[in-house]
């Protein structure tokens, strides 16, 4: 089975940066969900999802990000998105989710917050 999505995690102070690369769709999104859930439930509820390497993102992926956001906020943290490419930005904008998530141009900007 091919892996169309790779996920890498690194820590930046209180924040955990989840670097996604490839396609996040209904097939690959469950792995992202697991990753976000593990962090939010494991005492690391401040997450930046680095979308720079994401070429494609579908509604299931949006659902995973929304549920990740809720779990993070319930745990006193937050979930921010960094560096979405134009096609991903368009999907976020159409669904109005660009007003739900903190969106930053760079990971550094996202993790610089309070």
């Amino acid at each position: 089975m091919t892996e169309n999505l790779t996920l890498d995690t690194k820590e930046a102070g209180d924040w955990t940066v989840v670097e996604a690369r490839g396609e996040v769709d209904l097939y690959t999104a469950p792995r992202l969900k697991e990753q976000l859930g593990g962090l939010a439930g494991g005492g690391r509820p401040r997450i930046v999802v680095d979308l720079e390497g994401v070429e494609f993102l579908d509604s299931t992926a949006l659902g995973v990000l929304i549920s990740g956001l809720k779990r993070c906020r319930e745990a006193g943290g937050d979930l921010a998105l960094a560096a979405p490419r134009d096609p991903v930005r368009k999907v976020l904008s159409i669904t109005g989710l660009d007003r739900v998530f903190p969106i930053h141009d760079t990971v550094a900007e996202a993790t610089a917050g309070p």
Partner: protein
Amino acid sequence: MTAAGPSPGERFTLELPPDPAYVSAARLFATTIAVQVGVEEESLDDLKVAIGEACARALATAEGQPLSVKAERADGRLAFEVAQGATPPGTAGDLTSTPTPQELAVGLNLELITALFDDADVVDTAQGTPAVRFSVKAGA
């Protein structure tokens, strides 16, 4: 057997097992055909999104049926048709519970497709089964 370009009225069909693993193949099929018939590059990302959402909705509404994506090139457009099932997309259940990502997604499927393609619609096919349809401008 000539190298002449394709002529109008051409039909393209793809059928895949009803598994999320193959939706990316459906997206690739659609963009490959689109490029070949001269659809502008700016439309390809929207096309990928719409095909992906239509397939996701098909998996949610037509359990066990193959994923079916058809395209027809006619009158300067490339029209797509993605078969859907008769089952209404998952009722969200207990409204006080947190929706699953899949439940959130089903609500977004059509919203995304219609936002991206003006002529997008869920229609009944000649076979009496519903399908998502939309079209994109093809090359000359």
